[in-house]
């Protein structure tokens, strides 16, 4: 089956064509990062307007790259939530229009399940069940992934998401946007042990990143003189290390508690180079197989949405043209 997928849940306009949920025939992502960097974050009004401008060219490009036209597509998958409603509606409206005009089956896909499914587009793929860490600007959640649509929540953030902790630190240090990418780059030349930041490891599998953000704030406020550019690498490397330590430790603990020898790390923050290498190291030490998609499949894209779409369509799922966007849609409720 050849599935056309559309993703507009946040600040990327994306379309992709994937064959049999495995082979990416095309994947086009039009990022709004340049526009948003002026504002230091995503601006919803701008996000939805840019989606309107980009969505048709992005879909046409995806079809063109795959050397296909709409008639040769077997089904359409679209991100339905969670995300910004105004942004989601742009992709949803276009998907429904195409499905109606071309009489193609349509399915709505959960963005978080898409992130997990990105792992099936990698060279090495896990079999169900496995423990999945979904870590991005808006989410930090650990699941037991038993099958498509079948997720058990094991732990989640109690305050800020990990990606948000990166973004806010970058803002605090005037490093620019997107914060995670800038910190990843600067931290490479820094010493991760230069400073000590808190690593909240309470007994539960829940995360808390608000304290590490405040600790950085305290550090900047308590100093007598302003931070010089040369000090930044050590500061961000130490800050990044604290976040990475917590993500790795909690995820590995979740795997151990569930007797699970397989872990997948997905979502935008899974593109962080330090997080990737630390997970691979710890996996080897603990005899847990770690799966991380290539960075281009960690950040938002439509190919991952097509993987879930393929699965749902193959099972006979069809959504009507009354399909609506949802801002909140917990993964563990898919079966209900």
């Amino acid at each position: 089956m050849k599935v056309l997928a559309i993703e507009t849940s946040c600040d990327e306009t994306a379309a992709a064509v994937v064959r049999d949920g495995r082979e990416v025939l095309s994947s086009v992502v039009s990022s709004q990062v340049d526009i948003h960097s002026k504002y230091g974050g995503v601006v919803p009004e701008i996000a939805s307007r840019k989606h309107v401008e980009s969505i048709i060219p992005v879909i046409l490009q995806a079809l063109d790259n795959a050397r296909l036209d709409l008639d040769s597509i077997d089904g359409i998958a679209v991100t339905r939530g969670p995300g910004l409603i105004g942004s989601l509606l742009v992709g949803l409206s276009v998907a429904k229009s195409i499905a109606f005009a071309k009489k193609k089956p349509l399915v709505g896909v959960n963005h978080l399940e898409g992130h997990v499914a990105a792992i099936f587009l990698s060279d090495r793929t896990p079999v169900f069940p496995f423990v999945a860490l979904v870590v991005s600007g808006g989410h930090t959640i650990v699941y037991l992934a038993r099958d498509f649509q079948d997720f058990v929540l094991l732990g989640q953030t109690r305050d800020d998401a990990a990606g948000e902790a990166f973004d806010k630190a970058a803002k605090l240090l005037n490093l620019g946007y997107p914060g995670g990418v800038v910190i990843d780059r600067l931290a490479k030349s820094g010493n991760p042990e230069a400073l000590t930041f808190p690593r909240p490891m309470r007994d539960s599998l829940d995360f808390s990143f608000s304290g590490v953000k405040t600790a950085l704030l305290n550090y900047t406020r308590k100093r007598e003189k302003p931070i010089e550019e040369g000090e930044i690498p050590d500061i961000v490397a130490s800050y990044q290390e604290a976040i990475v330590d917590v993500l790795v430790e909690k995820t590995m603990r979740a795997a151990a508690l569930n007797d699970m020898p397989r872990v997948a790390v997905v979502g935008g923050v899974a593109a962080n180079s330090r997080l990737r290498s630390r997970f691979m190291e710890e996996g080897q030490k603990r005899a847990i197989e770690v799966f991380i998609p290539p960075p281009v499949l960690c950040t938002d894209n439509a190919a991952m949405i097509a993987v879930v779409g393929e699965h749902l369509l193959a099972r006979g799922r069809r959504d009507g043209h009354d399909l609506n966007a949802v801002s909140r849609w917990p993964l563990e409720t898919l079966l209900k």
Partner: protein
Amino acid sequence: MGEGAFTLEMVSKRAEDTFRLGKTLGRCLSPGDVVALMGDLGSGKTCMTQGIARGMGVSASYHVTSPTFTLINEYPGDITLYHLDVYRLSGPVDLEDLGYEEYFYGDGVVVIEWAEKIESVLPIEKCFIVHLRYVDENTREIKISGPVDRMAKISQALSQGGFI
């Protein structure tokens, strides 16, 4: 705020104080109330909102997390809590896109983080404004102001709680 406003000043010595202060405030809130939180990164806005939620009877099974990415989180309680974060918005124009009037003039309680960004559209006549200021590592200075007829009860509750 002009006449008819009333300001209470407190000091929070630790995050738990900010949480308890929020909880006390949360118990005094009624349907339709709007709480505008103003203060820098790390000043305790999300912490205070967690307290307000608990005071309003939002079940402890809900983790009140930062809505920076999602913009609005909704929690069912004795009264529904709408937790907004306008950090990423450029200003009031963006807020219109969220359909904020439905929240501001609805039956729930609205708590807004980074409210200073949208000050011009706050329903000032009924709004509680909370300023949180970083003093040092653990200490935050907190000022609450609001309609004078409502502040008496809040003042009483806060003094019973040992905050003032």
